[in-house]
């Protein structure tokens, strides 16, 4: 089983600035995957970025990147050049190995100030 902690319930960022959303997790598995999902006010959840634990290189998707610290079991999401459309709830979700379920954290509500 895995657990995930998102300790910041809300964050705010100025448009065009950079923001980092924190996530820590715990798992006894050696092979696992980590995801960030975004849920905008329209409520359709979409995948932002994913990271394989065996890869040392941090994943990057355009303005979104992660800082994966395996030893510390930390998986933070960095959003660069924040846009108004980035305003949403962001969920960190580990998945330990094949055939296991995704475990969502409690989420962080991000607001973007124009």
């Amino acid at each position, binding site marked *: 089983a895995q657990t995930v902690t998102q300790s910041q319930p809300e964050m705010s960022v100025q448009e065009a600035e950079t923001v980092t959303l924190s996530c820590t997790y715990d798992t006894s598995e050696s092979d696992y995957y980590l995801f960030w999902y975004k849920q905008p006010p329209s409520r359709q*959840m979409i995948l932002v970025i994913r990271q394989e634990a065996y890869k040392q290189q941090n994943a990057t998707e355009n303005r979104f990147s992660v800082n994966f610290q395996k030893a510390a079991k930390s998986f933070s999401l960095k959003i660069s050049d924040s846009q108004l459309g980035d305003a949403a709830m962001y*969920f960190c979700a580990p998945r330990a190995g*094949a*055939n296991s379920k995704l475990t*969502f954290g*409690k989420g962080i509500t991000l607001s973007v100030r124009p």
Partner: protein
Amino acid sequence: DAMVIQNPRYQVTQFGKPVTLSCSQTLNHNVMYWYQQKSSQAPKLLFHYYDKDFNNEADTPDNFQSRRPNTSFCFLDIRSPGLGDAAMYLCATSRGRVAGDEKLFFGSGTQLSVL
């Protein structure tokens, strides 16, 4: 566009009156999931189907059941809704579950109110 569709967007039911939420997908994915999400909380997995194989989470109340008559459709039945069942219900699909990095595709959800 291929997608996951949930109907209705909003559903109101009465305490104790059975209600069914529906989900359809055009992605031809093998796996379909139902999540319950209460206000400002993490989505909680209720159960999932891998093809016709039903997998119930241990802590899912007996009041919740599901049907998957074919690949495209999946239903969530709440036999006797209580006030505590008011929530957003999210349907999701994935191509398979073998690969750990499998991506989930979500519908827009059905917001259930219980009066």
